[in-house]
């Protein structure tokens, strides 16, 4: 067979996609509605005070603090599997983000228009680390609907970053969000591959 999975003796090609966003924005729900296995949470003991980004006043010695990591799986075909990871919401867990985002295909940043600021840190993080991402506005019941355009300008996103509306509870909607992300990542790769030939080095 000719596909890439086969040259590694039947070892699946694995693709990592992150689901990020503020606390309570629906990350666990989105992972849960897409995964083919029961959504899993592993509790990670927080053994280091959250590195540079936060001061854990008064809890420095509290080694039992745990951070939950949601995780789901989608098998595309034999030997091609997507893994979804819901990133821990609080910024003090960013040391875990570094590990998770390494080699990731991209990220879905969930946004709640009632608390849009909740997704600022995720947007900043992925911009800074050059991880392709889409912003998915989770349409909560009762939340006022905003046009993607308004969200884009409120978040000051670069024009190429897709903004989509989604309902994290609906599998079909979550699926569309992932498709938007993978297409965006593909497009970026294509652009990056073209760039050297078009723009000669100065």
């Amino acid at each position, binding site marked *: 067979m000719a*596909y*890439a999975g086969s*040259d*590694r003796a*039947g*070892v*699946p*090609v*694995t*693709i*990592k996609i992150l689901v990020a966003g503020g606390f309570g924005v629906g990350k666990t729900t989105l992972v849960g509605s897409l995964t083919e*296995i029961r959504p*899993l949470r*592993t*509790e*990670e*003991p927080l*053994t280091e005070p959250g590195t540079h980004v936060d001061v854990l006043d008064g809890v420095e010695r509290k080694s*039992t603090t*745990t951070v939950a*990591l949601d*995780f789901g*799986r*989608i098998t*595309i*075909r034999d030997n*091609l*599997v*997507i*893994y979804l*990871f819901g990133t821990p919401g609080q910024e003090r867990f960013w040391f875990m983000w570094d*590990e*998770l985002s*390494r*080699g*990731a*295909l*991209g990220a879905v940043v969930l946004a709640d228009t009632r608390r849009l600021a909740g997704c600022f840190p995720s947007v900043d993080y992925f911009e800074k680390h050059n991880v392709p991402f889409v912003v998915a506005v989770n349409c909560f019941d009762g939340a006022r609907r905003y046009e993607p355009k308004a969200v884009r300008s409120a978040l000051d996103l670069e024009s190429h970053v897709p903004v989509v509306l989604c309902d994290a509870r609906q*599998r079909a909607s979550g*699926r569309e969000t*992932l*498709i938007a992300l*993978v*297409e965006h*990542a*593909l497009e970026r*790769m294509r652009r*990056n591959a073209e760039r050297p030939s078009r723009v000669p080095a100065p």
Partner: protein
Amino acid sequence: MSPPEDRWLDEDAGPVVRPYALIRGRTRPAGKSLDVIAMVITVRGAWPDPVDLEPEHYAVLRLCTLPTSVADLAADLDLPLGVVQILLSDLRERSLVTVHHPVPPARLPDPQILKEVVDGLRRL
């Protein structure tokens, strides 16, 4: 198996004690930690020395007779990722498992794979 009332350990002992006793208090694996989506495979025909391995090491070896990701191992064994990383470093030191690191998306040998992902998602 002893009946549950005979167990001297109760829920209050906390869930974290056992895993960290198992890895003897270590918090970092020897060598590089593995990506959560790295695939682990048990080396066929390898004979572990039963003296220096814990039941959890054997559980990993059993699960990884088929290629299994680090994240799946943590979930299946109900252990924190950090603990699984250390169990895996023990097994790698003893050449009982091999690890396939994930290929970064930009270096996938065939960009067609991502198109397949899109098509596969559409079929879900």
